[in-house]
């Protein structure tokens, strides 16, 4: 593009940009900036939605960190999900991605079958697993029983609810599989041939050719996985509600994180505080904790992988 010298032309270009950007600019202001600033402000108010709000200083913050009985269990669970499910999902996704690149017969059928669970709507997938893993009549425990293996209580047992959740999240590993598959197919074939000529074993080829080539993608999968795990909401909530057998309805009260707070995650606390306890101020405190964690990892993602943002023109 040639440099534009005329001021009017420049103004027209600026107006044009503004016009094209306007839907997002309005959306940004109304649905992001305004509510985010309000959330900060609200975190210092005592407000129950009925009585007029009053200034309460740092009271909500102290309440959440010191007295709110669900905060630390939820943070611990979230940390558990981040460490265990992200590791397992990345490893499993890579494994399935590798497998699909090796399959020579019926590749597209296998790929489709492996990918389908990722598409299952989270609520439906969770309902399906609540049924599959229900200790009374579930097919999984029936099969375990028949094989003479111990049949755990899954979503009804605090020690097994998170492994059950992990199983559900592993089932939907299709997104990672596709990303890894594309990355694996992009590894230059010459490098494998060279390694083979040098007498590299299968493991050495994976370790010294495959891994270095796909490491940016692994990194990307880990960081986005961490962000997703921190925000995990629907699956643990629905699993807990179905396992506890509550009947849903307007204003339904359910035990958060059933059984024994084991499926409680940070985003659920915003719902619990705001919409079950009507303590909007404290809900905003948790929202800000969630915000800080998400932004920290997003900043890391953008710094670590400049490639996420393609150079524009």
């Amino acid at each position: 593009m040639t440099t534009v010298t005329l001021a009017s032309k420049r103004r027209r270009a600026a107006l044009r940009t503004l016009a094209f950007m306007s839907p997002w600019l309005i959306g940004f202001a109304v649905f992001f900036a305004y509510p985010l600033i309000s959330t900060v402000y609200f975190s210092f108010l005592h407000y129950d939605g009925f009585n007029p709000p009053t200034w309460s200083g740092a009271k909500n913050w102290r309440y959440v960190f010191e007295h709110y009985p669900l905060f630390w269990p939820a943070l611990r669970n979230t940390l558990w999900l981040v460490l265990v499910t992200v590791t397992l999902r990345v490893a499993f996704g890579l494994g399935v991605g590798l497998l699909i690149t090796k399959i020579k017969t019926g590749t597209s059928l296998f790929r489709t079958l492996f990918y389908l669970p990722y598409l299952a709507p989270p609520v439906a997938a969770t309902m399906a697993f609540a049924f599959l893993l229900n200790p009374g009549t579930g097919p999984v425990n029936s099969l375990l029983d028949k094989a003479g293996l111990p049949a755990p209580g899954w979503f009804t047992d605090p020690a097994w609810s998170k492994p059950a959740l992990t199983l559900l999240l592993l089932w939907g590993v299709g997104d990672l599989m596709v990303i890894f598959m594309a990355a694996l197919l992009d590894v230059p074939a010459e490098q494998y041939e060279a390694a083979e000529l040098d007498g590299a074993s299968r493991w050495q080829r994976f370790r010294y050719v495959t891994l270095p080539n796909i490491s940016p993608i692994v990194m990307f999968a880990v960081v986005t996985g961490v962000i997703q795990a921190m925000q995990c909401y629907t699956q643990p909530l629905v699993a807990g509600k179905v396992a506890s057998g509550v009947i849903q309805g307007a204003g339904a009260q359910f035990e958060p994180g059933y059984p024994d707070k084991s499926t409680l995650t940070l985003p659920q606390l915003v719902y619990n505080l705001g919409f079950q306890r009507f303590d909007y101020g404290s809900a905003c405190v948790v929202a800000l904790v969630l915000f800080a964690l998400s932004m920290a990892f997003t900043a890391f993602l953008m710094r670590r992988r400049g490639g996420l943002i393609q150079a524009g023109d």
Partner: protein
Amino acid sequence: MTQVLRPPASLDAPATPAARTARRKAALEWVAVHALGVAAALFFVLPFVFVLLTSLMSDSQALSRDLIPHTWQWDNYRKVFDTPGFLTWWRNTLLYAGVGTVLTVLSSVPVAYALAKFRFRGRNLSLMLVISMMMLPPQVVVIPMYLFWAKQLDLSGTLWPLIVPMAFGDAFSIFLLRQFLTTIPNEYLDAARVDGCGELRTLVRVVLPMAKPGIAAIALFQFFAAWNDYFGPQIYASENPGAWTLSYGLESFKGAHHTDWNLTMAATVLVMAPVILVFFFAQKAFVEGVTLTGVKG
């Protein structure tokens, strides 16, 4: 991208003992790989199979540990449709996902185009903010948003709070489409401009036809996101069953039918099926979109 890794072929090699062992090794590997493939396929497919089988069981059999129905109760599906509210949830979901998707595409395309092809101050900042919005969970801003919709506009218990925000661009769609648009060479745009096209005409006549796969991808993602959304309806629609969506209503099946897993699973199938059908019709665009989110760059 479509090239497949193959070990150097030794097809017409003379049948020396070395070649024979190599061929036997290749055959063994084929068997091992495909056995693993079948095992993995079972893990991914069996849950669907068990859900389908249970959805066709009689009420009494659904309470047993049987895996295969004695009699196939296709009637269960009619019972699900006859459940009060089910058709309303279906209509609400189509409205939310359908209208919302159209609005998202219309509002996200110009923004993505500007971010990909215009030079202006604050462009990188805007892009960073788009990515930040994309990574932000909805729970972060939900309290002020809820108070805004419920207390100021008195619109809780309707679909408005779910649909209206989609008319103002969706961060993920903008980001994905921008990634796609940057791959379109500038020469095409310059040629259109030289021919006297304004930016809007360039966008509509030249860029959009080339961006069809990208637009298909964001439309699909958006449709699925709305179809799958649970948090939005839980916050804004829960007080009025007339505004529930399928994802939200599905859960109430377990409550209403208590232990009847058969009807709950039939409803589950009916919530999963449309998404999977849409996927089969648009598989290519979808997989391209997933790849675009992670690998391009």
